[in-house]
């Protein structure tokens, strides 16, 4: 493994409302002995508003962070937030496909990015870099009595014009991780259906409808928990769930956990170090 070359891009949500994701990820990485260092001086990637208003603004914001990562000698930049990941990797890819665009934006922004940084997704990193075997070896508290629905959401696997690290429509990497922790995962129809997090604030009725379909399918499969790898999905499925299950007649509350919180529990890390108290829905009974 490339030690000390892995940068961590938290993004605003992991620094703010989803700090439990960052906390649990860093704990899990520590236990797995994977060195990772926060990108110094990072700024917001703009998701999901900058690109909604201006494509070049979106590119420039991400160019700034990519250029910082290059200057700070990070070979790879890990963005656990699916939205940040999507913004960073699609910017990088656009530069890769169009060198002149990179040159002109470098010029315009006073930056000097050479395109050398590789942007990594958390699931991709866990599956292909860390490896299922190593994850399995770390398990001290098998989750064998539990049944999970792995929810990948939109932005982890749907990157236009890039080779995907997993199947785009029906990914399985997160399922592999959960199985390595001893638990069962279900086959279900909503793995990558959008939860409408981007509309959660501005068009709540649409967003709630999308969330309700996900919860209904998961609940029909009688899962104990839905696992996510995105702070936007987490906020959207967790914090308004009490209201949504009433409105849409969903039989019971479903805990929503980050993949790194579940890994932490299976690795025997205490709940208080995994940010679990931030979750609105009841804690998993293990």
């Amino acid at each position, binding site marked *: 493994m490339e030690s000390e070359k892995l940068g961590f891009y938290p993004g605003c949500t992991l620094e703010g409302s989803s700090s439990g994701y960052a906390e649990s990820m860093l704990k899990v990485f520590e236990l797995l002995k994977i060195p990772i260092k926060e990108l110094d001086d990072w700024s917001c990637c703009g998701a999901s508003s900058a690109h909604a208003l201006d494509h070049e603004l979106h590119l420039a914001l991400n160019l700034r962070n990519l250029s910082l990562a290059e200057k700070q000698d990070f070979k790879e930049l890990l963005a656990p937030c699916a939205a940040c990941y999507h913004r960073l990797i699609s910017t990088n890819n656009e530069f890769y496909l169009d060198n002149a665009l990179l040159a002109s934006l470098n010029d315009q922004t006073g930056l000097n990015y050479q395109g050398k940084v590789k942007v990594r997704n958390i699931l991709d990193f866990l599956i292909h870099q860390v490896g299922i075997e190593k994850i399995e070896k770390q398990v001290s508290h098998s989750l064998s009595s539990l049944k999970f629905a792995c929810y990948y959401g939109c932005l982890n696997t*749907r990157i236009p014009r890039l080779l995907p690290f997993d199947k785009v429509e029906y990914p399985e990497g997160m399922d592999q991780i959960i199985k390595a922790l001893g638990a069962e995962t279900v086959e279900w129809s909503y793995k990558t259906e959008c939860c409408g997090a981007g509309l959660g604030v501005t068009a709540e009725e649409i967003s709630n409808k999308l969330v309700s379909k996900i919860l209904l399918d998961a609940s029909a499969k009688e899962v104990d928990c839905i696992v996510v790898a995105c702070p936007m999905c987490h906020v959207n499925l967790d914090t308004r769930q009490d209201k949504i299950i009433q409105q849409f007649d969903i039989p019971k509350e479903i805990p929503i956990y980050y993949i790194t919180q579940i890994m932490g529990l299976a690795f025997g890390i205490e709940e208080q170090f995994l940010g679990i*108290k931030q979750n609105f829905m009841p804690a998993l009974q293990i």
Partner: protein
Amino acid sequence: MVNSSFSYLHENVSYCYQCSKCSAGCPVAEDMDLLPHQIIHSLAIGEDSEALKSHTIWICAGCYTCAVRCPNDINITSVMDDLRKKSITSNLACPKPEVLKFHQTFVKDIQRRGRVHELRLMGEYNLKLGKPFNNVELAPKMFLKGRLKILPPKAIKGFKTWSKKLWNPKN
């Protein structure tokens, strides 16, 4: 020119052969006035006025389902972005002003210190909306759960000046 008739688009919509796959998989299709394939079709035949005025471009969830499924590799999600921008710069009335206000408040908050302060963002968005109590029922619980940071993140040195050159809030 092979490219489509509209220079503000980053995508070549003329590749579209109207299979409707984009619309079939769109999670918010039932709430749209124009379906994604109809948007692309109108642009391909050189007509953008309906698309620019549509609700669709404002309620698109940005999920990229259409973009990764299009057999002709048209990034429809990116077309939605371009249409939104064009409708703003053309000063068209926005049919979903709350969405526009949210995005503008968000970008303004980024420009302030380089990182978003969620509490301030929500407060300012509500004020802009003229609904100060919008979503406030969530706030106390968010706070108790440690999900709402009262203090803003640290300001990134030089960011404000740097970003002002890229984006003028009046746009």
